């Protein structure tokens, strides 16, 4: 479904990706994991054509995303849903109108049919009863589920999830985990999850990519990665504080920094 070859990307002179290769299979849940700040969200923005790579090729469903003109890109995006970390609901529209938004913009369906479709999508995420509420009245977990209903409103081929589990309480987290898997299987979607919540992601992913410092460190099924020999993968997958991945932001030696302060 998605093929990434030799992807390189810089931001503010800092390399984010350096010759990354990825393959996202159709109909599966693929997770891209890595520590915060490794450019996971940037990768989703590159796949969805919000950013352009410096080098390399990104193909979605056989077309090169960054070579498309705006009109063609928008056509491709009608087959792509994206769940933003914040939900990104339109704050001036009710829950119902938020989910109806893509339908109203891209179809000329009669009002009655739009209502039926919206209620179907809201029922799928368990929020049919909340359709009159405004986004400000929703909890974080509910907002994300409404955003999910909106993302599947046009029955896309593929959904991109940006940190779907970040900052959720255990119950909404479990609901979302179950929902992502169920929707993927019931609607025959291709799902890409970007996350650093190892336990939840591993529970539903068919295939995992671990990225760090701009490279794919390891990839495989959850079982493969769980017993990987790489100390880095072991540290990340089992959330160990000690290991090859440093806690510190790159800096000169501590002692020289302190002494430099004292000598001035």
């Amino acid at each position, binding site marked *: 479904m998605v093929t990434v070859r030799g992807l390189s990307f810089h931001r503010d002179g800092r390399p984010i990706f350096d010759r990354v290769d990825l393959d996202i299979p159709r109909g599966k849940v693929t997770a891209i994991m890595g520590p915060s700040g490794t450019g996971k969200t940037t990768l989703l923005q590159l796949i*969805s054509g*919000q950013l352009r790579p410096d080098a390399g090729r990104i193909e979605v469903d056989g077309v090169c995303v960054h070579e498309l003109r*705006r009109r063609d890109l*928008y*056509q491709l*995006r*009608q087959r*792509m*849903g*994206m769940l*933003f*970390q*914040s939900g*990104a*609901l*339109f*704050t001036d529209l009710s829950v119902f109108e938020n989910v109806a*938004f*893509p339908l109203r*913009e*891209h179809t000329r369906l009669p009002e009655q049919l739009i209502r039926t479709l919206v209620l179907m999508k809201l029922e799928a995420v368990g929020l049919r009863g909340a359709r009159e509420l405004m986004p400000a009245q929703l909890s974080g977990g509910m907002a994300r589920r409404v*955003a999910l209903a*909106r993302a599947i409103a*046009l029955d896309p081929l593929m959904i991109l999830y940006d940190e779907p589990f970040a900052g959720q309480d255990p119950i909404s987290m479990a609901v979302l985990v179950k929902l992502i898997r169920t929707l993927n299987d019931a609607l025959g979607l291709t799902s890409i999850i970007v996350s650093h919540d190892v336990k939840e992601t591993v529970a539903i992913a068919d295939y995992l990519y671990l990225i760090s410092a701009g490279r794919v460190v390891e990839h495989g099924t959850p079982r493969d990665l769980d017993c990987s020999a790489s100390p880095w993968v072991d540290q990340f997958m089992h959330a160990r504080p000690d290991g090859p991945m440093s806690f510190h932001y790159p800096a000169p030696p501590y002692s020289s920094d302190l002494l430099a302060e004292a000598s001035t």
Partner: protein
Amino acid sequence: MMAWLAEMGGFALDRLVRLGRANLFLLRLLGALRFLFQRPGLLIKQLYMVGVLSLPIILVSGLFVGMVLGLQGYANLVDFGATASLGTVVALSLIRELGPVLTALLYAGRAGSALTAEIGLMKATEQLASMQMMAVDPFQRVLAPRFLAGCIAVPILTGIFTAVGILGGYVVSVIQLGVDGGAFWAQMQAKVQLFADVGNGVLIKSAVFGLLANWVALFEGYEALPTSEGVSRATTRTVVTTSLAVLGWDFLLTALMFGDW
């Protein structure tokens, strides 16, 4: 010295780049306007938001400005026994200068800042990005209706401001200070020209100011850094830039329209 020069150069280049971006932004905005033929409802909603909701401040300010003009004009003209010209003084000041300029400044404070904050926050909360991901162009759906509504609203608000101001001047000079009502209106009618004064002042000036105010407000919102500090700075910049641009353009337009050189 070299460092200072380099800093100056960098600053100038920065400004130039920003001006270029603002122009590209305007072009894209103008290109998106035809979308409004398909969705007039979006335009009407924004006309209400930026136009109707700006009415209270425009009405109250217009009334007070007109009343002050009446008082000041009377105090100066009475020494020369020329209070009959008060109607002309009040009307020409409002139609040529105070109406368009003050309306644009008030609009920038009331509606322009709100537009910047709204667009900036939509950007900060990823609403614009999510719209793009749903294959909806924010230029068509969000920016174009606000821009056109603002450009329509400012000339109308200017007309209302001016009319209410003249009424305020009438109330103070004729009803309170006892200037002859017939002379007030007759002098005004004789001296104020439809095309030279009302056309240039209320129509052309306010159309230019409306374009400036809405262009600046939307551009600043769209380019705002997606943080609370970024949005607050952008809002401030909108009011400052619009005010300066309106005053600068007012001088240029006045020189072209009414200057004899």
